[in-house]
Each structure stands twice: as C-alpha cells, then as structure tokens.
C-alpha cells in the first residue's frame, strides 16, 4: 500500500525553503524585525498568508493589520518566526485535499489555533524560547504527510479500518518501519529547523517519550493540545480526529493542568 520508495520520493520532492523565507527567518533569529519585514514584503504569497492568518479571530486584533512590519511588530520575534514557519508548512500542503475533507482556510485555521494555544501553554509553563514556540508549526506536517501518502489509497484505508481499528500512523509504521513523525523530522532537517523542534514533535506522537524530562513534558502538552483541537467539530468532520492514536496514558499527569488552562468544562 505504502512503500519506503514512495516515502523517499515524497521526501525528495520537498523543495528547499525559498531564499526569501530563509533570509526572513535569519533576520528574525537575530531579532531584526524591520529587516525581516522588508524581505518578507518581497514574497507576495508569504505577505498574503501573514495578513490572512493574523486577522483570524483567535489572534484577537480589533482592527485589520495589513503591513508586514506592523504584523511582525505586534507579534514580536518569537511569534513572527512561528508564523513564518507555519507559512513554510503550507508550501507542502496539497492544492486539493482528498483524504481529509479540508480546505486551505480550514488548515490555516488549525495552524492558527495550535499556534495561539501553544503560546498560551508556554506562557503558563514560563517558557520563553523562540525555537520551542516554533515547534508547534511542524506538528501539522503529520497531516500533510498523511494526505500525501494515503490520498490515493483512501478506499484501501477505509476497507482496512472497517475490520481493524488501525490509525494511519500505525499502518505506516507496520508497513514501512517509519512513522509520520519520522517523516516530519526529515522535513525539519531538510528545512534546517532547530533540533529541539523535531525532538518535541517526535515526543508529541505520544509513543516516543524523551529522556529529557523538560522536552518530554512539552511533548505531552503538544499531544494533548493536538487532540483538544482535533476534537473540535470542524476537524472531526474533516476526518482528522483519528488519523493518529490518542495516547491517553501519556498525558495523564498533565490533564488537570491542561483542562484548567483551556477552561475545559
């Protein structure tokens, strides 16, 4: 159904991050917001994405924000970098979603919600780290990878799941000894994303805990956050709720804290 050859083809076809993006991120890493905005202005698709995403209700701005310098200024260095990484992920997403009932706008909505709530979690945990804030941007890559690998096998997947409750990640790892999060890691390496990011996202799969307890804790929060969002009606309808398996035991010790923070009742 899915072969290692198909996975390798997918990874090979991932384009390197565009020059403008690399430069924007470099300036953001150095805290040079004005220079970063100047470069970002030259990439019209990036500009449109940034405008669209920061004007979503979850960002809570009263007036429309339209200038890149203004956007970066309001977001600050960390969130700007996070948003640019989010844009990079969209470069991988398909024009038309087949496996999941997603539209471009719904996927952007998911990115925005994950990003904002991740920031809220980091503030709650008193973590102020640009790389860690950007880690959440890699998580939706697992959805893009699923779509890319399984979209032409939709019927097979449905048939298989009608007799056995297997999630896409398990199917992939049993067939190819590689899982969705391993492929996410390869994307991150190709785009020269920091190591911390890949480690947290690997842990957020829920079945690969890290020895580093601090990073592992972040993996737990990320796993729970993912399922919190994937339990929203719009994402259940898109077929995202069960594409990977929720590891309830992994998040047991942080659930109460999470529920309080997200005001789950």
């Amino acid at each position, binding site marked *: *159904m*899915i*072969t290692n050859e198909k996975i390798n083809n997918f990874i090979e076809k991932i384009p390197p991050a565009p020059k403008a993006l690399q430069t924007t991120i470099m300036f953001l890493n150095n805290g040079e917001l004005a220079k970063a905005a100047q470069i970002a202005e030259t990439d019209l698709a990036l500009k449109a994405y940034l405008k669209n995403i920061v004007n979503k209700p979850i960002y809570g701005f009263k007036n429309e924000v339209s200038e890149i310098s203004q956007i970066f200024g309001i977001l600050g260095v960390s969130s700007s970098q996070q948003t640019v990484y989010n844009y990079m992920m969209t470069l991988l997403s398909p024009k038309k979603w087949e496996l999941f009932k997603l539209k471009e706008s719904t996927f952007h909505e998911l990115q925005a919600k994950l990003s904002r709530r991740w920031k809220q979690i980091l503030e709650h945990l008193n973590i102020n780290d640009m790389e860690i804030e950007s880690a959440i941007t890699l998580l939706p890559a697992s959805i893009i990878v699923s779509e890319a690998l399984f979209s032409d*096998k939709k*019927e*097979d997947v449905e*048939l*298989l799941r*009608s*007799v*056995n*409750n*297997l999630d896409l990640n*398990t*199917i992939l790892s*049993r*067939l*190819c000894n590689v899982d969705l999060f391993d492929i996410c890691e390869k994307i991150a390496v190709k785009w020269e994303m920091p190591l911390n990011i890949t480690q947290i996202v690997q842990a957020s799969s829920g079945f690969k805990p890290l020895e580093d307890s601090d990073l592992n804790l972040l993996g737990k929060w990320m796993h*729970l956050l993912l*399922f*919190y969002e*994937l*339990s*929203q*009606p719009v994402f*259940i*309808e898109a077929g995202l*709720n*069960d594409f990977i*398996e*929720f590891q*309830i035991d992994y*998040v047991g010790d942080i*659930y109460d804290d999470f*529920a309080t923070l997200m005001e*789950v*009742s």
Partner: protein
Amino acid sequence: MRALVKDGVGIFSPQGFLDAGSAGVLLTVEDIHATTKLNADMILVSLKKVVFFNRNGLDTFVKMFAKVKEKKNISVGFCDYDVKKYKAILNFYRNEVTFSLFSSQEVAHLFTAGYKNKNQNVLLYNEDKSQRSAMAIELHDGGHNPIIAQTEDEFKTKKNADNAYDVIIENTYLGQMGQNVAARVTGNAIIYTVSSFLDAEIGSIFNISYHNNSLNVGFRLFIFDAYKVVSMNVHALNFFSRLASSGAEYNATICFVGMTFEKTPTAFKETLEDAGIMFFDTMESILGDKELLSELGASSADSGLNRRVINKLTVTELPNFIDATVATIEMMTNSTAVKESAQVNPIKIEDHTDKIASSIGFYGDMDGMVVLIFPKDIAKKACQLLIGEETDDLELILDTLAELVNIVGGKVKSLLNDHKVSVNITLPRTYPDIDSLLEIAQDRKGVQVDLSFDNDKFLFFLTR
C-alpha cells in the same frame, strides 16, 4: 463514526474530548441507522481514549443506545473507563441509567452468549446488592462461575489472592440486558440461546439474516439451547416450523436441547417433529457424539445437496475475485502478488501440514464462496499489518485471517458493484487445519488458483 464488530460485540472508539459539539459530529444519523443494522449481540462505546466527556457528549451516544434497543433489543453501554469516569457517568444519570457500564471489554464479553471462554471464575462486587445478584445470574446463565463478595472488605481481600480468579469485576453496572437470541459457533454447529416464554416476539428478536447467511456459508446444524425456556405458544410454534421448512432446502437440521414440555402442549412437540425438528435432553448428547454430529450434518457442514457447479457468471467475474485477493495481499504485505496457475477442478491440496484457511460466502446477483489456504507462517506474514507483533497464538492468527478474508470480501463486493453485479458477503469462517476445511469443501468443484507473494505460495479457491 462506525462501530467495529468483533465476536458479536460492536465497539465505537471515540478519542479526545467528547462534548455535545464533537459527539454530534462523530455520530451522525446515518451512523446510528447503520448501527441498528449491525449483526451484533451488544453495542458498546469505549471510553479508553476519551480524556474528557460531559453529559451532553454522552447523551448523543445514549440516544443512539435507545434507538438500537428499540430496533434490536440488544445490550448497550459504555466500557473501558477508570473509577473516576465510572462515578461521573453514574452521577450524570443517577436514577436513569438505562444502559450498562463495563469496566473493560473483557468484562463486557463475559455477558455475551457468544463468548468463547466459558467457565471463567469471576469475582464480582458492586455496592448495590441487586446489581451483585443481577450480574451473578447473568454470569451463571452464561456458563461462568460467579463468586460474589458481599462487602468491600471481603472483595479487597479476595481480589488480592494470587491467580484465584480469571476475571475480577468491579465498577460495572448492568442496565437492561438484551433479549436477542444470542448465537455462538461451536465447530460447525450454530447454537442459539433462547429463554423464558417463546411467543410472537421471537420473530423480531431472532436474527434471521444471520441465520440465512450461516446457511449460505455452509452451516447445516442449528441447535436451540432451550434449557431456560418456560413455555412456547402457537406463534412461536409457527415460527420454528417455518424455520425448519426453509432450512430443509439446504438440508439443514434444527435441534432443541433441554426443552421441557411441562407448560407447553406436547402436541407442539409432535408438530415440530413433523416439521423435522429434533429434540435432545442435553447438549452433551449432541456435541459429545461425533457419529451423531456427522449424521446431523455438523461434522460435514456441506451436505452435498447444495453443491453446485461453477456457472458462466462466476467464471466471467473470476478476474474480479482474483484481483480483489491480489490487491488485498499486496496492500497488506507491500509486495507483489502473482498468479501462477489456474484450473477448474475439485479442491486439491497436496500437503496438509501446518496449513490454515479462511472462507467467505457471497450472495445476491451471484453466489459462491472464496476460500484462501495458507501455510501457517505465510498467513502470519500476510496478516502482519493487522497483527502488528510476532505471535504463535493460533486463535489470534485465525481471527486475523478472518479479517483479511473479510477485506477480500469487501473488495470483491466493491469490484463487482463497479460491474453492476450486486452481492452481499457473509461472515468469514476460519479452519485451523485442512481436514476441517475439507469437511465443507471436499469434492466441491471450483476454480483453484495458485498465488504467491515474495515467493510464498498460497491457494485461492472459488466455488459455489
């Protein structure tokens, strides 16, 4: 979201956060409708992967339970929860718990008639005395040995005794249990359990489509376990007479075991005997007598009277059957499956050693049966995706092979549908050795195709 049915129990497995919004999308009207059509003795919602739920979230499933009970009168409830969730559910519904709560799927299975492992020593405790009694009665009826702890202290003490019990039941609540006629398979016989008063309701609680599918797939002996039947009226008499007549076409035998006629007119017995139904005092007198079993058709599920030759339509559609098998094996193994040779003849298996098989029947615009025969190790390899781990557990391998042949059946159905041929598929059957397969397929003419993947050979047989 659809329930996955295994061993007669349909399980929904939602995950994440369950509130009114999410549950409403997870379980649509179509899903509820499909659930009422399932061939299951019990419908459960597993809360194993649900980290949060509220009453509104559960209500969606509780409404589904009500619909299922209304249509099918089977047991319904939640399972796989911890004590915190158990208390929360009881608290939400207080005096209106119309469904059951089973701490695990294993516990739930104990309360189904189709459960394979009978005679389990079960320690149970519930602070409500009537619940304790209800559970003990159900378990006893199901062929288990319940041991009731009368107090929490007694329960704790007994619970800590090493290996004293096969299963321990706590945090479990029995709602209204289903009254459907439960079915289980023993060898090549199907045993239905009936109880109390048999009246016109038997027509709605007996799963006639399961029975017909069983006839289609080759079962010929049907035993009604009637130890607990108090009496029967004329409506039930007519029902069983009709059932016997329709089974005669297949040369099927229907038996009643343990039925006393203390409160039923003895003339009814004569009428039923005239219709071909046989009566036995004990189950052992049938199942323990191989000669009798053979005579009744259970050791040779194929009576021979229903044996038909492959027809033109079956041959025309043969490529679809092979394509479905090849595609399934390729999907499951990531390797290329190859057709090596094909011939029309009675099934011929050179070496019987260490081989297992599975079959699935289909009926509708065309009918027949697909049989797949694998060396045991190759079956394990073919089922690796579904099994997920190394195992020598034959029962697990056979169960998984049944899943595989179910996928083949699903693919056949879909491919034939593309050619405007509409068929339904039966439940899969498995055979732990070739002798048991030959009991049903011996001398049947069909198309035998040798197939292989990764140079591992297996056999496909299509017959009618």
